[in-house]
């Protein structure tokens, strides 16, 4: 059932459905958009399951695995923020955010098999990677909303986007915090050092600190605009952490070279 071709077809199908969901949300067809998003999520889920079956381990071994899983995070997160924060109107942003990582998988080597080295055989592996994936997924949507806030000329709409972004970041930041510091605890168990200033670790810390700074500035007088810029700087650092460090050899990470 899970062959290279079937996985490719499923991935393409999921990608297409995410794109259609985004277009439907732009046309204000929220219900149809949600159902199409759901169908795309099911197809995406089958790809993740397929990756698990084909490699025999939790599928977080390389960039292809990670991007496929990352796309899967957005619908459950949308349901969470809709129920908890009343942000049902952000569906289009979540659909848009799920489309691109899955599209990206078509441009990389789909290394379906993966041998899990001893260092990754730890109870920390799944929680560490999972919390980061979910937090980065939420942060991506929050960044799109923050960009919309800066782009919007209407003050009320701008404020609405900004508040929604901050609200969604309150889901992302605790997970990012757990991901960052669980990595330190895991490193201590594996190698005896919490922190080795590996490029991936350093950029993850930069990302975390910038988001923290954004939160600290938000509540201060005149802090909205500064908070927005710090937020976007944090997202830029997130992209460096997630993509640049993995894909550019010069930035290469010795400890996190498993994810290529």
């Amino acid at each position: 059932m899970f062959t290279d071709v079937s996985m490719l077809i499923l991935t393409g199908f999921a990608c297409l459905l995410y794109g259609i969901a985004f277009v439907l949300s732009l046309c204000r067809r929220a219900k149809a958009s949600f159902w199409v998003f759901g169908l795309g999520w099911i197809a995406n889920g089958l790809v993740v399951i397929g990756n698990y079956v084909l490699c025999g381990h939790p599928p977080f071994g390389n960039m292809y695995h990670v991007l496929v899983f990352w796309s899967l995070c957005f619908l459950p997160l949308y349901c969470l923020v809709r129920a908890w924060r009343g942000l049902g109107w952000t569906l289009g942003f979540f659909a848009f955010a799920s489309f691109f990582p899955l599209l990206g998988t078509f441009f990389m080597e789909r290394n379906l098999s993966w041998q899990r080295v001893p260092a990754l055989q730890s109870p920390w592996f799944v929680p560490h990677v999972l919390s980061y994936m979910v937090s980065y997924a939420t942060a991506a949507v929050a960044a799109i909303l923050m960009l919309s806030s800066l782009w919007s000329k209407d003050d009320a709409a701008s404020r609405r986007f900004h508040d929604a972004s901050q609200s969604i970041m309150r889901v992302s930041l605790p997970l990012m915090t757990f991901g960052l510091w669980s990595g330190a605890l895991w490193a201590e168990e594996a190698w005896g050092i919490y922190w080795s200033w590996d490029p991936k670790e350093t950029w993850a810390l930069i990302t975390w600190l910038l988001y923290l700074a954004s939160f600290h500035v938000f509540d201060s007088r005149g802090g909205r605009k500064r908070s927005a810029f710090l937020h976007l700087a944090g997202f830029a650092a997130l992209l460096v952490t997630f993509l640049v460090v993995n894909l550019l050899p010069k930035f290469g990470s010795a400890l996190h070279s498993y994810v290529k």
Partner: protein
Amino acid sequence: MLVKLILLIVCFLIAGAMPSLSGGETAIFGTPIFCLLLGILGAWSIWCCFRGNRHKSFRGWCFIACHCGVGLLLLGAGIGALKSEKTQFAAYIGSAPANELPGPGETSFKLDFSLAITDFKVDFYPPTYDLYEPPSTMGDDYVHVKSFKPDLDGQFNIPLINDDSELKDSNGNWKAQLILPGGKLLHRATQTPKYFEATARIVKKDGTEYEQAFWVNRPLCVDGWRFYLMSYDTQHRSYVALSARRDPGRTLVILGIWLVVIGTSLLCFVGHGKRVSEES
């Protein structure tokens, strides 16, 4: 002011994370000014906890937990950086117990117990085989054609051989090379270890002895020392590479980390329900 401090630290981090020709960019993280900035951040985080009446509300306690956590974490890391004892060494398998660890340079660390590695086991994943074609011009290198990895059933499905049993020798080990018809060559790439484990014999000063296995992600802990299995002799399996560490700041760092994680989570998730109803 705190935000400016955070941004200054971020600038140092970016400078240290940028690749450079010398490769010495991470030296910036050991400079006194960077350590001072971290120290100020830790002290400020703890000082924040005593401002106002934070202890009068649950969110206040979450704030205190989060910020105290940062302070404790940095304090523990500072203690560890200054006072910890650490070394890396090769421990030969089957050698007599030793109560001294080689340190950096001519130094050594005296232990209150003796340690010896008595056994070592390693298990590998099935290898990858690379197919090479002979060069068209004499003197040139063989040309890599394709790599073959086993599927989930462990089958290679290499078209040029009848059965995967041809890849194993009489002892059942994977062959390093196999010459194929037409001068082609199948070469075994480096095998990825699936699991490796060492067994240590510990002899205490009072004469009690015991053996304990340890592996990656499961260090050996004896009297405050932690021994980490880093690697092994891949050629002859005569020794294992260990890292030993005794860190007085470890407890503070772990406590600080958990306070940061729990405090941040509670701060973000608790007490924002009212905003939801206002926004919707």
